[in-house]
């Protein structure tokens, strides 16, 4: 078969989820390069969209890749740079954040951001019996964050007795989540559920609640399925944390593996592969537990 | 007072073939002479003769390049001023060395703080600072920030700082350049007292009358060399001046021309007030006229003109060449004033007069850049202007491509003067124009002012040197405590008269 020179372009490990992405990408490189003699994988991590565009350019013109797996920093901003890589003849698999112009990609592998917002909402509605006060934390202002929030809101619309008291940005950051939660607790005397929207932020939320010694909060729902959170669910350690929604960074591993193996055989991938986000509960938690991953 | 001091036994100094070079430029060429303890020496020389440099070597601020410096017979290699101070050698700098954000007391004790255990003893320092200030006759709260002081006050703080160090050899580099006779007199008393205590004093000044009055012996340097020494009582001022410049000096002041009395004033100022500093000043200056401004330190002369230039809030009426200045408050900014033909030379050379980190060329042309931008700056034209100014104003410099900071004090002053005359103003205000300038150059500057006046420039000279005002000006206005108390014509100009008005002891109807 032909040699495959695969480039992987992902965001830098600026928070735990991206740490997981980095881990799984490197894991894929290790496993796959050992397995296939004709495969070379080059991983690049970018701190922002322009840098990622630069790296795509470098991968294409200098490293001369013929296949690319890209986790775009931002959908819109990277559409053109990715299209250019494709124009130079590389096979392009886009992961997680779809491009605004789908003709710039050959395949799309993604988690399900709508489910990421919908599942916690449904869970909270069900657990609270359709009535209660909810606060939410948001990530960083991005399209992705909007999709999740919209899906969350859409579910709550169906339950008029569930009140979303406020939703503020905590930047997918533990410290900011801690502060925002502290202030929520000062402000709202009665909160039934907190949608932390990310397992990293959930850490800050938990600490703030612990400090305020509040016991009115019945549900804390994170997101993405970090190993610590999954372990808590598995062990049933915390009543408030009964479930999580999966959005594993491992999909980058799958995407790289699928792309590399398909290209080695000269095959194509299906245009779209959605890796479903599912509710993690005590029952299925161990399927999502990867103790070696940083996430 | 604090200087009573452990001045037991003073310091004997011997320079033996001292050589100093800044890079390729040699400024001291083997200077040899000695200073016996307990005397007051006057160190004379033209601007750039190397006086300050030699004294910086003596006090540990500059290393010497060659030769030997012996203190009490021991060869010394000072690595810092701290070493020299350990031997009781203290220098009062020609240029101020004060941290503007610190208070007077903090500056006086900088590097020599008094402590109570770990902590500073501010009370004691303020007390001692107050005593040192009293000794030099400066009445400010020691807690005042130096930034708030006027130039003369800063000079006195510099002196107080040295006094508080309890020197056994005290070097004063132009201590009176910005002082008026009152402060100067007080300083002389202090010198006498220190001398009585056995302190050796080196006194550098271009004011030969002071040198004559206060020193026991004069030492003259020229072009980085020792030239002559003599007991002060055996040389006349005239001889001193000739020794300095190495040629016969003619009259210091140019003959006075008469201005055409009928000429319309170039600038007319009416009821001009700078709140807190000057009230209701009214005066005219005509083209070709040299108008002096006399007054004690703190009389408000500097502030009056700063108000006129829009640097301080002010009110009053100003007319320039017959046209009123629109907003009736003087100009909005020095830029505005310059556009209408008024420029100002500040008395604070380092803080307001020159960019010491800039080259000579950039300094010289800064106020007249329009002339050199056509539309791009013409460095060659600028360089030409610099060469011309160096000649006209007698600026002594090794190369034209050095920074202003490497000029000697007096030469910096000449550069600053050349700078404010570059835009070819109609009226120029010169605040202490000959501060730190040697006698030969002073003469050149007087003749230059005279020539410019003859060409139609109206010149206002603010000066604390009464003789300068008397020798140069057509009329002299006297200010006291913010008020213009008198304007004296040339034929009424005597020192007694000026002092009487400045101190308020004159018959108030003395002159028009």
């Amino acid at each position, binding site marked *: 078969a032909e040699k495959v020179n695969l480039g992987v372009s992902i965001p830098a*490990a600026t928070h735990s989820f991206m740490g997981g992405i980095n881990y799984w990408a490197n894991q894929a490189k290790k496993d796959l390069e050992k397995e296939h003699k004709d495969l070379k994988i080059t991983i690049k991590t970018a701190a922002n969209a322009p840098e990622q565009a630069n790296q795509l350019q470098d991968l294409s013109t200098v490293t001369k890749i013929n296949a690319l797996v890209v986790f775009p920093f931002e959908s819109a901003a990277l559409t053109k740079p990715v299209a250019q890589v494709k124009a130079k003849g590389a096979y392009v698999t886009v992961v997680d954040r779809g491009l605004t112009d789908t003709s710039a990609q050959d395949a799309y592998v993604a988690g399900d951001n709508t489910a990421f917002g919908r599942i916690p909402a449904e869970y909270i509605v069900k657990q609270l019996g359709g009535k209660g006060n909810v606060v939410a934390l948001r990530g960083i202002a991005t399209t992705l964050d909007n999709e999740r929030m919209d899906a969350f809101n859409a579910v709550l619309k169906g339950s008029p007795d569930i009140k979303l008291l406020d939703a503020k940005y905590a930047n997918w950051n533990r410290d900011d989540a801690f502060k925002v939660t502290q202030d929520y607790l000062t*402000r709202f005397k009665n909160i039934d559920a907190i949608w932390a929207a990310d397992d990293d932020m959930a850490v800050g939320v938990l600490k703030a609640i612990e400090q305020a010694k509040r016991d009115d909060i019945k549900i804390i729902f994170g997101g993405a399925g970090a190993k610590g959170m999954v372990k808590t669910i598995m062990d049933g350690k915390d009543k408030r944390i009964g479930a999580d929604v999966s959005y594993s960074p491992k999909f980058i591993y799958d995407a790289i593996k699928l792309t590399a193996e398909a290209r080695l055989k000269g095959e194509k991938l299906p245009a779209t592969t959605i890796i479903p986000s599912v509710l993690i509960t005590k029952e299925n938690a161990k399927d999502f537990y990867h103790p070696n991953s940083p996430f | 007072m604090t200087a009573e001091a452990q001045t037991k036994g003073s310091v004997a100094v011997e320079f033996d073939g001292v050589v100093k070079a800044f890079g390729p430029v040699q400024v001291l060429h083997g200077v040899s002479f000695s200073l016996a303890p307990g005397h007051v020496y006057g160190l004379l020389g033209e601007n750039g003769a190397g006086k300050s440099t030699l004294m910086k070597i003596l006090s540990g601020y500059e290393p010497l390049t060659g030769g030997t410096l012996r203190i009490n017979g021991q060869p010394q290699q000072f690595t810092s001023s701290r070493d020299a101070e350990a031997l009781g050698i203290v220098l009062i700098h020609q240029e101020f060395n004060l941290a503007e954000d610190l208070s007077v007391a*903090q500056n006086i004790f900088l*590097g020599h703080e008094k402590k109570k255990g770990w902590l*500073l003893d501010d009370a004691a320092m303020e007390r001692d600072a107050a005593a040192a200030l009293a000794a030099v006759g400066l009445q400010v709260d020691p807690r005042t920030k130096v930034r708030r002081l006027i130039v003369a006050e800063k000079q006195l703080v510099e002196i107080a700082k040295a006094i508080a160090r309890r020197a056994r050899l005290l070097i004063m580099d132009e201590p009176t350049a910005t002082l008026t006779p009152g402060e100067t007199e007080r300083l002389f008393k202090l010198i006498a007292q220190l001398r009585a205590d056995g302190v050796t004093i080196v006194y550098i000044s271009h004011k030969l009358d002071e040198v004559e009055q206060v020193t026991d012996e004069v030492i003259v340097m020229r072009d980085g060399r020792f030239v002559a020494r003599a007991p002060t009582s055996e040389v006349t001022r005239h001889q001193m001046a000739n020794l300095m410049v190495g040629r016969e000096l003619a009259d210091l002041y140019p003959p006075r021309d008469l201005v055409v009395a009928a000429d319309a004033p170039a600038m007319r100022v009416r009821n001009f007030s700078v709140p807190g500093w000057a009230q209701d000043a009214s005066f005219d200056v005509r083209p070709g006229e040299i108008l002096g401004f006399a007054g004690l330190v703190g009389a408000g002369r500097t502030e009056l003109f700063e108000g006129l230039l829009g640097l301080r809030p002010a009110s009053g009426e100003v007319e320039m060449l017959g046209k009123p200045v629109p907003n009736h408050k003087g100009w909005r900014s020095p830029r505005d004033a310059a556009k209408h033909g008024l420029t100002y030379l500040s008395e604070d050379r380092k803080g307001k007069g020159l960019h010491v980190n800039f080259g000579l060329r950039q300094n010289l042309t800064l106020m007249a850049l329009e002339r050199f931008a056509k539309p791009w700056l013409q460095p060659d034209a600028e360089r030409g202007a610099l060469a011309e100014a160096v000649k006209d104003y007698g600026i002594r410099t090794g190369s034209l491509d050095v920074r202003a900071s490497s000029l000697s004090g007096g030469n910096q002053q000449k550069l600053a003067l050349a700078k404010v005359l570059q835009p070819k103003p109609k009226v120029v205000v010169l605040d202490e124009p000959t501060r730190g300038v040697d006698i030969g150059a002073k003469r050149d500057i007087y003749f230059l002012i005279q020539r410019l006046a003859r060409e139609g420039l109206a010149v206002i000279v603010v000066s604390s040197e009464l003789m300068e005002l008397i020798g140069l000006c057509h009329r002299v206005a006297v200010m006291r405590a913010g008020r213009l108390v008198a304007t004296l014509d040339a034929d009424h100009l005597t020192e007694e008269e000026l002092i009487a008005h400045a101190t308020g002891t004159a018959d108030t109807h003395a002159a028009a």
Partner: protein
Amino acid sequence: MPPEQQTPMPQPEAAQHRSQGKPRWAEHLHGLGPVIGLVLLCIGGTLLNSDFATVDNAMNVLTRTAFIGIIAVGMCFVIISGGIDLSVGSMAALIAGSVIMFINWAGPASGSPLMAVVMGAVLAVVLGALFGLAHGLLITKGRIEPFIVTLGTLGIFRAYLTYFADGGALTLDNDLSDLYAPVYYASLAGIPVPVWVFVIVAIIGGVILNRTAYGRYVQAIGSNEQVARYAAVDVDRVKILTYVLLGVCVGIATLLYVPRLGSASPTTGLLWELEAIAAVIVGGTALKGGAGSITGTVIGAILLSVISNILNLTSIISVYLNAAVQGFVIIIVAFLQRGRR
């Protein structure tokens, strides 16, 4: 040349007034700039949400101010001396990470968890001092602009943390974490420990700055380095020490930070440098150095956290615009205390 006669003259009476009285008043008034800003903000906060003016909320705000506040005290020295340090956030993150790794290792290894935690705390301070020393040496002996040095180490520190954490988070083991937690969560006489530490650091900082020769030298160097050199101040040593001091402050802040979340990740301490510098400048210290005050810095730090606290307690404007409100308030507060120049 006629002899000039020297007549002794009296000092003009007027000259005395100016230097006293008014300027001192005016200076004190200036110092009040941030205080006025803070008071106005608090009034506003109370009007917007009555929960704002509760003791609990005040303690929350003060506690979370503690980190930045402590760092800002150190930063105040660096800025007054004419320097800058952009790396404090990354430095805090790396120290936090190192301390966590150390405690996780030493806890089981030494057999005494308490000992491990104590030694971890010491390590935090020592590391801070060492990093500060490195900065100081590069800046003074290496003669590199502080901006460049600390921009460089900003990247270096964070990169190493990310490397150690493998891109994820370093987390304190649970039982050790419980042992360490009181350092952040406990109170003494009703006031949380971090607030106490903050107050103590601020007082010590104030004493060093205003009451010791060292503090005086810091101000002298910032005001005019040449003058300080001429006054035989050991400029390099004083400058190096400002960075060491700041490093120690970062170490102390980290030591309080670790028990809060028990973890360090690549986002830990992000943009703390901007917050710390802002606290110092909002507090009335000029970025060019020379003069500044610890009290101002403390108030500046509190002011900045009060702004975001109030924004969290209200939802009158779009969340998107929170940062804009913050920006406007900072500018307005600075405007209130302007006119120094």
